[in-house]
């Protein structure tokens, strides 16, 4: 029995090891003789569309500058990510770029990099010891721009509903900035602040909107709905359309593909504010170039403002 059990546990171990080996990305290429600058991009989230986009953009920028870029994805495995950072350190790359992912979970890898004097740049990653600079969106600015846009669309007056999700620090910052913006308009009143459940935010927001449309049945009693991200905005739009309350203006944030499609219809979904990933990628490449030329970034946090998406540029 014991033998069998042991044998089967070896078998399990073997299978797991084989799976891990199959999942692991190919090793980072060695530095060519031509002494091209080499950059290792490591990410746990390549499966995420946005992450893939921003890394592809960065790669384009970097290659245009004549650098050699390798991209390694660890499919949400932070342990493997640390190993990959250490691999990059061993190969003496000129810079490491974190493509999103919380650097607090990469401590060992970051320590190895800083001991080897290899700079680490974060794209929408986070700040932690060993990260030279993080380039990310300014959630406060995103919230402010979206609230300003909605306030203008309703001519600075009327009742506004806010869809929030305070446990998420980014969305919380957006909502705080939006609330402050609305407060500056004396004729705008935030009548409801609703917490949207995740997962299932579209359906949840749709139901809450249906209930609120019933609670405020007169046309014009709700001027606008501000959502902390695009999913609840979509739910609100669907409820407004179904109830023929198309006078209500809905505003989202993130500029996701489905939001753009809805905005393009010129219905209640008036606009969304997108994080500017092109600018993030470009800024990161710029900072690395400056670093290679001996100029360190003046701050460890660079905030990129959002980009407004309306019916005019949504296609």
């Amino acid at each position: 029995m014991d033998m069998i059990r042991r044998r089967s546990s070896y078998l399990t171990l073997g299978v797991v090891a084989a799976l891990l080996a199959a999942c692991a990305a190919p090793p980072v290429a060695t530095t060519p003789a031509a002494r091209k600058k080499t950059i290792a991009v490591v990410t746990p989230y390549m499966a995420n569309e946005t992450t893939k986009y921003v890394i592809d953009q960065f790669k384009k920028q970097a290659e245009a500058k004549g650098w050699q870029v390798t991209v390694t994805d660890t499919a949400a495995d932070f342990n493997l990510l640390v190993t990959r950072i250490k691999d990059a350190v061993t190969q003496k790359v000129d810079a490491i770029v974190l493509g999103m992912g919380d650097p607090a979970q990469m401590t060992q890898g970051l320590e190895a990099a800083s001991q080897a004097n290899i700079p680490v740049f974060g794209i929408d990653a986070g700040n932690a010891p060993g990260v030279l600079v993080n380039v990310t969106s300014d959630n406060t600015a995103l919230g402010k721009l979206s609230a300003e846009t909605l306030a203008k669309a309703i001519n600075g007056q009327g009742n506004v509903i806010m869809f929030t999700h305070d446990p998420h620090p980014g969305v919380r910052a957006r909502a705080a900035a939006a609330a402050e913006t609305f407060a500056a308009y004396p004729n705008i009143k935030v009548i409801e602040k609703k917490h949207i459940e995740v997962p299932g935010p579209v359906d949840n927001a749709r139901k809450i909107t249906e209930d609120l449309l019933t609670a405020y049945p007169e046309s014009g009693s709700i001027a606008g709905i501000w959502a902390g991200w695009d999913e609840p905005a979509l739910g609100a739009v669907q409820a407004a359309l179904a109830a023929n309350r198309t006078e209500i203006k809905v505003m989202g944030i993130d500029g996701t593909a489905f939001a753009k499609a809805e905005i393009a219809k010129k219905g209640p979904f008036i606009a969304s504010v997108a994080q500017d990933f092109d600018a993030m990628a470009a800024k990161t490449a710029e900072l690395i170039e400056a670093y290679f030329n001996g100029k360190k970034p003046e701050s460890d946090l660079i905030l990129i403002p959002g980009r407004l998406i309306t019916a005019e540029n949504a296609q």
Partner: protein
Amino acid sequence: MEKYPVSEQQPLQRMTSSPLIKLNRPHDLAWARKWGTLIGFVALVVLFSLLRPDVFPTVRNWSNIIEQVATLAIVAATVTIVMVTGDFDLSVGALASLAGVVAADLMANQGVPVALAILAALLVGVAGGAINGLLVAYGGLSAFVATLATMTAYGGAALLYTNGATIFSRIPESFRWLGQGDVAGIPTPVIVMLIVVFLAWLLMEQTVFGRRLYAIGGNAEASYLVGISVQRLRLIAFMLSGLGAALSGVILTSRLFSAHPQAGNPFMLNAAAAVFLGATAFREGEPHVLGTLLGVLIMGVLGNGLNILGVNSYIQSILTGAIIVLAVLISSLSRRR
């Protein structure tokens, strides 16, 4: 051993001597047990109607509530079938999500006709349910462990299938009818809900199959000994639960006219809550389809009413939890002698 039960009985004796429990004749108890949850529901309706008489008790609001609960009622009615046997199905939310994205992808991206895409999605649900059933009935895993594992796996499959993204473009317009259309003014999801609830009720209350499932729930060992094919019936129960979850996921996709890889996930906890609430109504604390429907309605009315009153979202969650506890507590207290 003789002494111990005596000392245990003391608090009970104290309870029976309190004036509150003097009413505690078996007759009153049975009454409270049978109708307590329904009375609670009516009380909620009356309360909300008094607080917002212009809004809550209107036809528009009620059609709103019923349309809102339709998808949940479908999942909850079919998950009741599993819960009757004493098992549990944690995977229904993930299966609903998976079926939703499969249907959307097939019709939007693979050129599959709408009806076939829906059928394929339902088959995914049945297959997922069958895996659950095989693991539980034949593999000997506890339903909790098995469906916890498959919940994770099905959820992962939905994310993998869509790469985490939302499917929203090229969905055929004819698919809209299932989630947003109506028949003679009655929304399609409500009609589907009524059919599913009726069929589930018929199956559980009026057929030998249903009675056998209740027998398994009462005592699986004894059911086996009297010749009921326990394993096969449990397998079928899980397949029906998977089918209901998938149907609900497909309707949700049509309603939102977009498929989000986690859209169905909230169904799991809400359906379980509805079944537990429903088990306190009309009967001896066992799950049953009409009770589940009442449970779903209570949750729907609660959410809608509190939203209309403008109650803080976090407090809404606390109240929902408190009401479930209260209902089950009253039911179990009134069952004690």
